[in-house]
């Protein structure tokens, strides 16, 4: 008898909790935003920082009453799919988004995945925000992809030029992992360096993506004694090891990359040897971060235990989607309306101090506005934190 009473009490409690949860969730209609990217394997850090940025922002919006688009206030739900950095899985992920009636997706994280999902996205009326650099994704006749960050062919020349003018850099060496994204970024970097008049002293050394000890890989590069060593498309997992090996081999020049990095990872993996390392960041350095950015970092940290500096660039995509929908509520299930709005869209950038704007750019690189205008913040690592080296804009 007692057991039966206990069982009934438990059942009632579960039912009540479920009801309450349903009621809480059902207060607003739900707007689903998708994420298709890599959240497992060696490159998991890229996708997980994306996914967690979106989940942090969505939880924040929902906690504060939802997001109003037109006359309706929505709760935001993030629907995630791990593509395992496999183009076939990325297609399956985008198909899942289509089946769920989702029209706005962040990701994929890499070139081949972003290229693979294009037909699915265009056939199913999905706008997607990849972190991939091939220009063909964003140039007409392609229409549905929006580059979610600054491309290496935009940041690279700015960094090299800055270092030529301020540090007297004359020679440069490139090293890249042997896979499509880093190799294409290396080729773009070499082209940009040559165009600026830099002498490229080494550009053919590559490494397996699962390399763990870079001393043998870097030894021939060090013999070329460049002023600047560029780690093309380097993942946050490999950057500290490459820096450490280069410094231990006696390299005293500058080291840079055009990808986003995490200060904590650099501190743990390379310590003081990472001082002076130049990378592309977002807007979380103290002088640039707005109170909203600081709150985002706090909420992310509370939600997941630890912040990832890569999220400084990945905080933007969801904000762009929601702000653009707010600007034209009819776009909520109509990507043509979304695309039309992109041309004139402008809103305050809530994550940066000053009068920075959210707007779409890319006319120079792609011939149409298919890129989010995140600030090109170039950071330098120093004693466990990033400092802003310079800030530029991309058009």
């Amino acid at each position: 008898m007692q057991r039966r009473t206990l069982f009934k009490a438990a059942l009632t409690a579960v039912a009540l909790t479920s009801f309450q949860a349903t009621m809480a969730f059902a207060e607003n209609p739900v707007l689903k935003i998708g994420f298709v990217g890599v959240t497992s394997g060696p490159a998991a850090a890229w996708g997980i920082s994306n996914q967690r940025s979106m989940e942090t922002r969505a939880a924040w919006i929902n906690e504060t009453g939802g997001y109003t688009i037109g006359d309706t206030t929505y709760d935001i739900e993030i629907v995630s799919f791990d593509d395992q950095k496999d183009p076939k899985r990325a297609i399956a992920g985008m198909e899942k988004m289509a089946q769920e009636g989702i029209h706005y997706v962040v990701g994929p994280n890499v070139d081949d995945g972003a290229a693979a999902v294009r037909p699915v996205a265009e056939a199913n009326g999905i706008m997607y925000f990849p972190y991939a650099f091939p220009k063909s994704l964003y140039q007409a006749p392609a229409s549905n992809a929006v580059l979610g960050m600054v491309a290496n062919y935009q940041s690279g020349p700015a960094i090299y030029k800055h270092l030529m003018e301020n540090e007297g850099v004359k020679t440069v060496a490139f090293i890249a992992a042997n896979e499509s994204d880093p190799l294409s970024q290396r080729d773009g970097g070499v082209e940009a360096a040559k165009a600026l008049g830099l002498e490229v002293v080494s550009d053919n050394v590559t490494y397996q993506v699962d390399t763990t000890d870079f001393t043998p890989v870097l030894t021939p590069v060090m013999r070329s004694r460049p002023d600047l060593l560029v780690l093309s498309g380097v993942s946050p997992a490999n950057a500290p090891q490459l820096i450490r090996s280069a410094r231990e081999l006696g390299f005293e020049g500058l080291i840079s990359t055009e990808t986003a990095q995490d200060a904590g990872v650099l501190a743990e993996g390379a310590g003081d040897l990472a001082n002076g390392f130049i990378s592309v960041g977002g807007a979380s350095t103290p002088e640039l971060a707005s109170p909203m950015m600081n709150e985002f970092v706090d909420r992310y940290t509370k939600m997941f235990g630890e912040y990832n500096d890569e999220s400084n660039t990945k905080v933007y995509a969801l904000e762009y989607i929601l702000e653009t929908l707010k600007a034209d509520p009819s776009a909520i299930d109509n990507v043509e309306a979304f695309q039309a709005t992109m041309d004139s869209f402008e809103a305050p950038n809530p994550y940066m101090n000053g009068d920075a704007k959210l707007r779409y750019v890319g006319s120079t690189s792609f011939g149409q506005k298919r890129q989010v205008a995140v600030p090109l913040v170039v950071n330098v690592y120093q004693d466990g934190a990033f400092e802003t080296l310079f800030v530029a804009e991309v058009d």
Partner: protein
Amino acid sequence: MEQILANGVYLGSQYAMIALGLTLIFALMNVLNFAHGQMYVIGGFVTYTFYGQWGVPFVLALVMSCVTLAILGALIERYLFAPVIKGSAREESTMLLAAGIAFFLDAVILLVFGEKQRGVPKIVDGVFNYDFRLIMPYDRILICVLAILSIVAFIGLMQYTKTGRALRALAQDRTAAQLMGVNVDRYSMIGFALGAMLAGLVGGLLVTITGVNLGMGGPTSIKAFMMVMIGGAGVISGAIWGGIILGFMEAIGLAVLYQYGDITYLLIFVSLMIFLAIRPQGLMGKPWG
């Protein structure tokens, strides 16, 4: 040339240690442990947590990695592999189980340790530099020496202790060992625990050099399988030679062929295919298994 030799010795010693645990488990139980790389990663994260996060002395952290992995290995053998081996004569059952454990451990690692690359403070500072002809950081030299000493200790254990003799007997002929009074269940568990412990030990050693991240498990397992295939599956000395050969091939390839791009591993794989076509049992394996 000096640098190539030094890199070869260094890479070879760490690779040999990675392969030892894998080949031991294969020799004892005929199990291809696809989760070996994940065990290596857990070993790295345990040392990271104790040494890097909590400030415990490195040696103690290394011991914790060994103990954790030995316990994990024993539990996996006792509650997962042993029942499957008893209940199924098909080899693919244990292969599927091992693959499942690998995925499971990957998920656990992500949940517990996160997605980021982790590293620990250097255990020894400074770089040995002989006229820029031979450059080797002191911590790499120390890890290389420790790896070689660990391999020697493992060989000693296998050759001169009762446990080692029992494990070797099991590896040679399971039924005969049982008839001679070896407690097969007990020593299978001990052998699996020892194999997992070796993965934990090398993971803990190498976290000081390479750091550790969630995605290292799969590639580590693949490299370990390559070494085992070169040396001969289930043969301890074969795993050591396999590791040394792979280490030297990598060191020589990276030094000599760098101007042709990343063809070192391409050539290693081609060489391995040709080698296995000629000698499928590996360097020291027996054609009959």
